């Protein structure tokens, strides 16, 4: 079947099938359907389209704030404006100012749903395809197709964007595009994309420590003249992109208070420590320590910021350390080989782990986290999973984290009436990646952990189905859910840090850099594509064994052959 001219049809088939599933999920209900007067996230997004179309820009962030006032950064507002213009052109009543509140006609629903699918197809899907070409370009078409399916059918994103109704895929897609640009050595473009991502949803800030560190370390790595130049350019590009984004809110066009108002709306520190039940550190420990009674909000903001910083620090330090080591190695070997500074720096392989660790630490420890925010740590985790071999640690962790994340959103999904979609997308995705946690006997620690977590999850579902919670504890099941999920997320965060350190060792060696390792290094980085091809061929022959060896250092499958070869040299050194 695979031989008869089908291969080239797998890609369009997979894309079309994913569109079908997205539309199918979209047939269900959404956040706040049929619940006046406030409705939910769907109405919020629709309302923004309504207000951006009808009001001048300076009133966007101040119009009728209690009813879903705009509180996302400007790019969301611009996109809403564009969608609103198109929607008004099709049917003006969908976005009539004031009169369209809570409108739920079949036509307007389909329009809103199709904007999500279209924006996803325009931003996220191309970013995924680029990711596969750039980060996994050396792998077979079949492997890449599998990875694509894994990424396209990610249940958490499907449920939140196309079921619950949000535009997270745009923000994730822009960040992913930034990663792709970094991998291609186009750091300035990467910075632009990341700023756009931030400008679409402030949540992208969760990635900022990792991405900022990467760029900084790259500047240091490049050394004096070049690194400095890059640093200045990056600053200029970042600042000017921000200015461009906020241009309509700046003095010549608007009063300075407009900008201030928009910033107040985007960063609301006046809300509580956490909302609803979310599987993070604060909510989970709240069972024992009632944080809100115990400390003032001000103090809590400070301590949560501190904890978050402590959370992402290890991976940041690790990247700095590796970058420093690499730079030393490079300068030591500078006279023996040509410098090809435009190529990917070796610590690029750390980026996904750093992104995971940093966004997970934000999710676990920061202030005002929603359960949906778990999508941010999931993105780098999915990228790692898509490149991992079946049963490798990255695969097991990826599957565990993803399934747990979907489970952690169960109370939300249940409220939205997305129970069937929850089952369908979970079954479909686990089947697609060939995941079966209940294979006996479990081989690794993470496997045992997964089994425990899934048994607990199934048990909770069953219990919820059979038992009604006692009146004294109406939130019994959401709290139990949090208690199951939080430890898994904590472990996932630790795993990301551990893997980052391991990959760091593999790339840079544990001890101080010797001249020999350094020269081995540069030989590899400087080798011509032809030589690389030869090595690739050799690797394919004993692919299994080298693959095995690799799993020790987490799944660096990712890093391309070039880095692989280099690190192998380092291992010998050890």
């Amino acid at each position, binding site marked *: *079947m*695979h031989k*008869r*001219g*089908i291969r080239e*049809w*797998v890609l*369009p*088939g*997979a894309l*079309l*099938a994913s*569109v*079908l*599933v997205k*539309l*199918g*999920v*979209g*047939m*269900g*209900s959404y956040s706040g359907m049929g619940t006046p007067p406030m409705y939910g996230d769907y109405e919020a997004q629709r309302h923004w389209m309504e207000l951006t179309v009808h009001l001048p820009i300076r009133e966007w962030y101040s119009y009728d704030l209690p009813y879903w006032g705009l509180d996302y950064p400007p790019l969301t507002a611009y996109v809403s404006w564009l969608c609103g213009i198109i929607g008004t052109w099709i049917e003006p009543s969908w976005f009539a100012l004031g009169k369209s509140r809570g409108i739920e006609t*079949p*036509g307007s*629903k*389909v329009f809103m*749903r*199709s904007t999500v699918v279209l924006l996803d197809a325009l931003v996220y899907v191309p970013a995924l395809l680029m990711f596969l070409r750039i980060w996994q370009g050396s792998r077979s078409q*079949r492997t890449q*197709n*599998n990875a694509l*399916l894994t990424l396209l059918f990610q249940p958490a994103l499907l449920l939140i964007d196309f079921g619950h109704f949000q535009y997270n895929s745009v923000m994730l897609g822009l960040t992913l595009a930034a990663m792709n640009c970094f991998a291609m050595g186009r750091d300035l473009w990467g910075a632009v994309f990341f700023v756009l991502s931030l400008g679409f949803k402030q949540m992208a800030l969760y990635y900022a420590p990792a991405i900022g560190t990467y760029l900084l370390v790259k500047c240091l790595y490049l050394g004096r003249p070049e690194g400095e130049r890059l640093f200045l350019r990056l600053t200029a590009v970042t600042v000017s992109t921000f200015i461009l984004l906020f241009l309509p809110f700046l003095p010549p066009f608007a009063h300075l208070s407009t900008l201030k108002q928009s910033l107040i709306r985007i960063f609301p520190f006046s809300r509580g420590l956490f909302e609803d039940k979310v599987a993070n550190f604060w909510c989970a420990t709240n069972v024992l320590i009632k944080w809100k009674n115990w400390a003032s909000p001000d103090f809590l903001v400070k301590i949560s910021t501190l904890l978050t910083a402590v959370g992402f620090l290890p991976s940041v330090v690790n990247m700095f350390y590796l970058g420093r080591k690499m730079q030393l190695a490079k300068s030591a070997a500078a006279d023996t080989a040509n410098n090809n500074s435009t190529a990917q720096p070796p610590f690029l392989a750390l980026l996904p782990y750093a992104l995971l660790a940093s966004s997970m630490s934000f999710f676990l420890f920061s202030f005002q986290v929603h359960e949906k925010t778990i999508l941010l740590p999931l993105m780098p985790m999915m990228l790692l999973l898509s490149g991992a071999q*079946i049963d490798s640690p990255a695969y097991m962790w990826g599957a565990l984290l993803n399934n747990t994340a979907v489970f952690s959103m169960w109370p939300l999904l249940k409220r939205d009436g997305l129970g*069937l*979609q929850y*089952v*369908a*997308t979970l*079954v*479909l995705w686990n*089947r*697609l*990646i*060939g995941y*079966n946690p209940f294979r006996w006997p479990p081989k690794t620690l993470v496997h045992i952990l997964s089994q425990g977590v899934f048994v607990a999850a199934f048990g909770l579902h069953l219990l919820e189905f059979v038992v009604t919670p006692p009146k004294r504890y109406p939130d019994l099941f959401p709290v139990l859910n949090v208690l199951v999920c939080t430890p898994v997320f904590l472990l996932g965060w630790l795993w990301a840090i551990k893997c980052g350190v391991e990959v760091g060792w593999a790339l840079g060696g544990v001890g101080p850099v010797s001249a020999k390792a350094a020269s081995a290094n540069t030989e590899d980085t400087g080798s011509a594509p032809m030589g690389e091809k030869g090595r690739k061929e050799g690797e394919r022959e004993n692919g299994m064994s080298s693959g095995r060896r690799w799993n020790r250092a987490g799944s660096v499958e990712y890093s391309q052959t070039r880095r692989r070869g280099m690190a192998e040299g380092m291992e010998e050194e050890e």
Partner: protein
Amino acid sequence: MQSPSRSHPAPVEHLKDVEQEKSLRPSSWLQWDVESCEWDILLFSTAVKLLLYHCYRSTDFEVHRNWLAITHSLPLSKWYYDTTSEWTLDYPPFFAYFEKLLSFPAAFIDPKIVEISNLNYDSWSVILYQRTTVILSELVLASVLLRFIRGSVDSSTQRIISASIFLHPGFLIIDHIHFQYNGFMFGILLWSILMARKGNKLASGILFSILLNFKHIYMYLAPAYFIYLLRSYCLAPSGRLQVKNFLALANAVIAVFVVSLGPFIAIGQLPQLLSRLFPFTRGLNHAYWAPNVWALVTATDRLLLQYVKRKGIDIAINASGVASTSRGLVGDTVFAVLPNIRPVHTFMATIFFQSICLVKLWITPTYKSFLTALTLCGYSSFLFGWHVHEKAILLVLVPLSLLAAERQAYFRTFIIVSVSGVFSLFPLLFTPGESIIKVVYSALWIMFVYVSLRKRVYEFPRTPALVVLDLVEKLYLAGFPLLLILINLFPALATSYRGSVTGAMEFLPLMATSVYCAIGVVWGFIRLLFVYLNEDRIYQGQLSEIQ
């Protein structure tokens, strides 16, 4: 689309292993042998169907809910008399028994479902329950299709065909969105066909008579069964009557009918039952014209009428025909210019075309010939029948799928008829969300079928005439996307042109769909009939080795 899951080894090797295993094991219906890629297909389709629970449902949903209520809360003697709801029971007794069976769990889940006066009940419980019964009853279809793979000559081709039937957009549109139980009943039909393939003709006949007692529309296919069983089972090749076989079959069929109709005969309700099953008060065309010959004839009449009006030609025009433009009414279609069609005409036309292929079947009563004749029988009824529903196209599409990979000629016919047939089902779903889904799903399906089968059967067109034909057919197929765009833009275009969409204009997109699809469906019939009648005895094809 075999979703490439990582867990299974290379498909080819895997296949060989399984085939070897298969030859060692005796075949039985109970054995649990489903391969990984078959699980993939089942899970994928089930996931998609689960997502469609929230979709639009037609009045057929309430029809079936009402039947659950009737069979559960009324005694058998009142089933065919009850008129609490306008959706009275008008399927044969086996289906009523089936509903009775389904009503027990329904009453357990939510007693309100089976309350007879609880009309238009549409709580989540009843939607969940009824939709789930469709998916579960469709497992009959799934298991039969699996059996088709196991004993076939070319199992990889048959696997694609089986998958294409199981994933057929017709089932998705009619069963899982619009709401009916066709998947289940086509499962029985295919089971019967499978028995014919295995040479177990008695079982085939019994299963078909059971099917008839589930839904009488399958009578469209009955002539082919009758001739096939008579010729190849009841008569020896020499033409002598095989008394034992004949009696066995006759008794079995009678027994099936006794089980089904017996209770109603015993209480003297047969006339009432039959009057429910065969209401002869409907018009030539259904509200939306099924894409058959009469759609073409009616359209011609409309065009002629316009022509006559414009030119002012003096011809006797039937005044009532001018008024009757079949505007979504289940009434009589009266022609303005052409002579009117009566039920007897449609009947004669159907019989005529059926008997052509039945003669051929009588001469060559092989399995493959039977399959083609069966398709053609259903096809003739669809094309020429009185008051045909567009949904009946499945009677053609499903058996034709089994022939799809025979040769290029069959394959091309299959593609043309499938595309036009599925497209003709699109107007069943008119709500915006479902309209996108039906198009995306059908596109995905046709892509999967076309891509995976085309190279297996490809033949180069040999004469210039065939090259031209090939081109024309491709142009016709390429017209479908255009048609889709046109009928979707039509309201906007008409509004900007005339200010508003009124009267006959409103039905123009439906008419255009119906006529354009009818061209393909009728052409497919001509093709298939020609291929069948001029069939060489020796050629390649996956069914050629099966007698």
